[in-house]
């Protein structure tokens, strides 16, 4: 499917009436859907929105939004445990990375097209050394950070890409962020920082790629923390052209994080941050 055009802005006063009566389109794996909801662990649109990926158990499925039936979908087979996270390459449409309980990160290219029975196998993979919990792709598409169950963070170089060469992916030595659990990570839109959300209820901002901690932000209570945890994660899902508006959004949710980022955005960082690496 070609990528659809961008929507015109919708004013908040008209939101409810605009969506009233909209019936959702259902993408079902079965011809006659059961009344028990299928356990779909994660889903993600490709960067142009031309494809929608879902994970359920050890399976990853790529749907064509134009054709909501399972015959028009593609199945990515290769994980032996449940898949925890999938991320699309923000710069190369069709490239997707997954991680899960089997402790691997797998790279797929859905443009290759499915093999027999609409099933595809991974193009490349790497063993993390423990179960994979989350993944984030840098805005340049050159790096992945993977989080393991034991809270070790592993940067992976994917500059070689999935296609066109036979070189393996390379993994840097993993590290822990202090003693706390790390639940999610996300890149800032500039790609110069990563955000990490921790079990102790803080959001940490780290320099990328040095992973040196710049600042730590404490939530008001557990509930707020879990909300913010995801806002920092998902905010980077905004496409690159919206970097500016995203900074505004970050400010409404996390003034302190926004202040940290803006203090680093000039040529001479003035905040408490360590000197950012420009590499």
């Amino acid at each position, binding site marked *: 499917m070609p990528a659809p055009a961008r929507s015109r802005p919708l004013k908040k006063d008209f939101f409810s009436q605009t969506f009233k009566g909209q019936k959702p*389109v259902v993408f079902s794996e079965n011809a006659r859907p059961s009344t028990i909801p299928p356990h779909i662990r994660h889903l993600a649109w490709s960067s142009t929105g031309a494809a929608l990926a879902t994970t359920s158990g050890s399976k990853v499925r790529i749907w064509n939004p134009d054709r909501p039936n399972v015959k028009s979908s593609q199945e990515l087979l290769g994980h032996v445990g449940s898949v925890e996270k999938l991320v699309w390459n923000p710069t190369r449409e069709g490239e997707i990375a997954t991680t899960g309980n089997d402790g691997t990160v797998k790279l797929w290219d859905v443009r290759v097209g499915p093999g027999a029975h609409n099933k595809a196998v991974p193009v490349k993979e790497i063993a993390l050394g423990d179960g994979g919990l989350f993944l984030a792709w840098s805005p340049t598409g050159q790096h992945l950070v993977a989080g393991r169950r034991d809270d070790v963070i592993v940067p992976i170089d994917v500059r070689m890409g999935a296609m066109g060469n036979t070189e393996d992916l390379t993994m840097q030595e993993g590290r822990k962020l202090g003693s706390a659990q790390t639940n999610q990570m996300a890149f800032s839109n500039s790609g110069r920082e990563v955000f990490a959300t921790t079990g102790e209820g803080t959001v940490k901002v780290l320099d990328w790629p040095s992973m040196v901690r710049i600042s730590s932000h404490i939530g008001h209570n557990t509930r707020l923390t879990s909300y913010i945890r995801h806002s920092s994660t998902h905010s980077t899902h905004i496409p690159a052209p919206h970097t500016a508006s995203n900074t505004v959004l970050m400010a409404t949710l996390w003034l302190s994080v926004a202040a940290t980022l803006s203090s680093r955005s000039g040529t001479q960082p003035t905040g408490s941050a360590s000197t950012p690496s420009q590499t």
Partner: protein
Amino acid sequence: MTGSIHCLSFSFDGTYICGAHGMDKDGDKGIHVACAQTGETVHTFDTTHIINVLAWHPLRYWLAYAGDTGGVKVIGLGSNL
């Protein structure tokens, strides 16, 4: 919204945030859409079950979510929204 938020997503233009309670025992069903600037809730999409993952389309006001019966659902798909 009350209860912990399990998933959330910004719309492509950064105007709206939607969230759901996923897997939280005392969580509510439905998807709450808030204006990102003011924080006010502008709409709630009703669902039969608790939603555990959702994502706005990167270019349109189309919202994909899972946790409900049938499979993945997409509100607004193919429409001019």
